[in-house]
């Protein structure tokens, strides 16, 4: 299966080597062939054909005209239902379009469907979805692998070549980890670069939209399309969005890379330490100065994250109460019962677990010990990075502590599951941009990912380092 890139496809469309219809028919065919992967929560061929019809009538030039894109089902879309992979939003049809998807529509892209995810983006294997597991397209027969999560559907959609790019959201690693598991590129930009307006919230201070693609160049094109200030999101940043693609520069000579010693953890398999070393060697060859740095509070990042994110989630998910929209239990004798039964039946186990954790850490008598302390540690973690970035231009680490694991492996062990985020969570807490690119394979020939972190709003440096590593690997 030779995957054509977004960059190449745009050229082919431009030179009329291929039509929008032909292009998308090709993707539709593959989507239908791969239904067993359970990549999409919502897919409608009719809807895709309608979009093609409309674009064929549209003579204006658009940057992504006709490009098939998959949308994580956490983004509210007018033309397709939005479920957040939860029963509680099973039949929810938004009357509004999220900021990010609207930008993609404005650029003329075609939405092929809404991709599966962990319920409300809570998970690391896309196995908490009300709509069932997504299967990693790289799975061998009879041994289904997890695609990672929470944006596993989007990562799998790109990996199986069901689209030329996909949107994701990343709260603690939900783009970077599945990108690593599925062998694709995934970028989580700086917190505030893309508006959160219209994305069902998980943890507001961490949620950030981003992109999956086949390669770094494509990611740089797509990220530029979804970034930008939005006055409807108070945490949206007023920054100029550079043309990342035009500015791509794989010459890293004279730059400094930071290698955080705290990311060498005992549990990391040899293979992962190996690709990390390989990446460092490649960079060294390119004239990059290697700087060993320390991010001393790294070990507190996971517990900090698993206090702050559930705390915010417990409040963000209070709106799903059966009163206004979404699922409402039939068994109602009182208002309290309506809440209890609606939420007991509407939410899955992992969501309930996090709501309970979040409610607990915010409770009177526990707030100071948990939530407040976590906020303080979060500040220390951010300070670690600020200090480190005085000495380096970007940081390189592994993306995840393992390759894709078998589908049901960590299903019943939340702590093990949470450990998947160990390398991605610190940058999320600090609001920093991070990308995962495929870099090497494990002994089972499964892809492994390298993570590149940059300074706030320095996505360009992240892309430059990524494209440089990618080109050297190819």
């Amino acid at each position, binding site marked *: 299966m030779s995957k054509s890139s977004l960059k190449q496809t745009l050229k082919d469309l431009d030179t009329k080597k291929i039509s929008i219809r032909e292009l998308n028919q090709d993707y539709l065919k593959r989507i239908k062939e791969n239904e067993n992967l359970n990549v999409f929560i919502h897919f409608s061929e009719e809807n895709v054909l309608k979009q093609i019809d409309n674009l064929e009538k549209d003579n204006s030039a658009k940057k992504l005209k006709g490009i098939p894109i998959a949308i994580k089902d956490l983004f*509210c879309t007018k033309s397709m239902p939005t479920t957040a992979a939860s029963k509680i939003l099973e039949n929810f049809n938004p009357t509004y379009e999220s900021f990010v998807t609207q930008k993609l529509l404005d650029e003329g892209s075609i939405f092929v469907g809404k991709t599966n995810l962990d319920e409300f983006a809570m998970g690391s294997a896309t196995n908490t979805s009300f709509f069932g597991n997504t299967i990693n397209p790289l799975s061998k027969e009879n041994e289904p692998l997890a695609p990672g999560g929470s944006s596993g559907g989007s990562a799998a959609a790109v990996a199986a070549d069901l689209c030329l790019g996909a949107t994701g959201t990343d709260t603690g690693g939900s783009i970077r980890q599945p990108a690593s598991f599925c062998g694709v590129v995934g970028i989580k930009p700086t917190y505030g670069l893309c508006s959160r307006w219209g994305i069902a*919230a998980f943890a507001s*201070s961490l949620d950030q939209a981003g992109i999956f693609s086949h390669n770094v160049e494509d990611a740089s094109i797509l990220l530029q399309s979804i970034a930008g200030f939005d006055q409807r999101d108070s*945490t949206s940043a007023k920054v100029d969005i550079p043309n990342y693609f035009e500015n791509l520069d794989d010459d890293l000579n004279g730059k400094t890379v930071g290698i955080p010693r705290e990311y060498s953890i005992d549990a990391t398999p040899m293979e992962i330490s190996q690709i990390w070393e390989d990446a460092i060697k490649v960079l060294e060859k390119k004239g990059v100065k290697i700087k060993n740095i320390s991010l001393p509070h790294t070990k507190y990042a996971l517990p900090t994250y698993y206090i702050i994110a559930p705390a915010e989630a417990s409040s963000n998910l209070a*709106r799903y109460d059966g009163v206004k929209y979404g699922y409402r239990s039939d068994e109602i004798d009182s208002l309290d019962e309506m*809440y209890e039964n609606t939420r007991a039946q509407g939410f899955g186990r992992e969501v309930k677990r996090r709501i309970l954790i979040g409610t607990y850490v915010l409770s009177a008598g526990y707030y100071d010990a948990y939530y407040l302390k976590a906020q303080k540690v979060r500040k220390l973690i951010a300070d670690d990075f600020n200090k480190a970035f005085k000495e380096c231009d970007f940081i390189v680490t592994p993306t995840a502590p393992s390759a894709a694991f078998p589908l049901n492996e960590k299903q019943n062990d939340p702590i093990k599951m949470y450990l998947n985020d160990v390398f991605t969570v610190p940058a999320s807490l600090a609001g920093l941009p991070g990308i995962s690119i495929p870099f090497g394979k494990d002994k089972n020939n499964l892809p492994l990912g390298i993570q590149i972190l940059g300074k706030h709003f320095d996505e360009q440096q992240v892309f430059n380092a990524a494209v440089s590593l990618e080109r050297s690997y190819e």
Partner: protein
Amino acid sequence: MNNLIKGEKHDWEMVIGLEIHAQVKSNSKLFSSSSTKFGSSPNSQVSLVDAAMPGMLPVINKYCVEQAVKTGVGLNAKINNYSVFDRKNYFYADLPQGYQISQYKYPIVGEGKVTIDFKDGTSKDIRIVRLHLEQDAGKSLHDQNPSKTYVDLNRSGVALMEIVSEPDIRTPDEAGMYISKIRSILMYLDTCDGNMQEGSLRADVNISVRKPGDEYGTRCEIKNLNSIKFIKQAINYEAKRQIEILESGGSIEQNTMLFNTSTGKTRPMRNKEEAHDYRYFPDPDLLPLEISKEEIVKIKSSIPELPDELKNKFIETYKLSNYDASVLTAEKQTSDYFNETINSDSELKNHSKIVVNWITSELFSLLNKNNQDLNNSPVSPENLGQLIKLISTNEISGKIAKDVLDDMFSSGKTARQIVDEKGLQQVTDQGEIAKVIDEVIAENPKMVKQYLAGKDKLLGFFVGQAMKLTKGKANPKMLNDILKQKLNKKN
């Protein structure tokens, strides 16, 4: 002043603090652009944000922030350059987000004070703890269907200012005066329409009782009172209830109470154990609110004259008593009316007390009787000024002036017109008055005898008779003087 209530065993003192919820006067809501108009059809003013649709985010309405700052200045309070919006989490059907966005640790306005004025000329400061901004909830309608509750979200997200006082209030009257004063300040500032009937201004009352000099007792909170009358009733009832419990050896449970307006009684809504844990935490969808010194200065400079300043100005310029001046300045429309009346003629400055009386007693009672408001008074300030001028120049008597005002009120004519048409000018001709008095004396020889025998009270009788003959037009002072003169001559 004795503020104590008599109990069976000894005296008790009330300790009262108020939390006032004032709806910010603003066309749109605190975090959305929906209209705040009162009385629109249910759910016609609800945005995606107000209905808490997935992925919707609050954006602060700058105008509401300015209104809060303005109010803070009016309450002589500290404006905080840095404040934070928090989420107050609880479930209720008319709370679409499942939390109310409020301010907890860092309110926009800090400590301040307001002054209340008593009839005896004394006054008292009530300290303000804080003012913070928060969202209102929607409304649950339980009376539309026997088995269902409907929800109207028009009010959901409307901006409220919660103004919290120290427990400095000691009587129901003080509580009434305090809320009136706050209402007055907000209305001068135009930051709240002050309409208590529509719920734009409502209060939670915290009350405890103690033996004078003791520590504060355990308090109860009476929720959501929307008239001064109910506030006073509720306080009186609740204080009595607490005293009865304490005097019979019981102790007060820290309860949240509801006041039943038809029975005049309070009843517990929930106790301390059942109290919500609101799990406040900073709203991650909103950045901390930062207001620069420059912005505060700019807002301060836009603030109109407030009741206390105006009161002092009236006292100084027109030599009014503290109480009169505070009555005049309690409502902006009254002080405006007074200003326009007294400035309608340069002479009136010297008769300020008469002007005050004619506005606050005569005109007010007419307005009250006719269920009208000063804003749409049929008698304009100029016309009232003219009437008062006629009194002060002795053209008509005060008694006749009352009839003239009645006439002005119903016909809309000017005082001059009425006096001229009906020939109501006061008789100030000495000869004419003397003639009438002679007549009265001649017709009542017995009475004259009795009067001369020492029954001084009969003077009033003679005045009345003379007035009757002149149809009330005789100048009372002249009438009195001449009458005494003539009677004494008989001696």
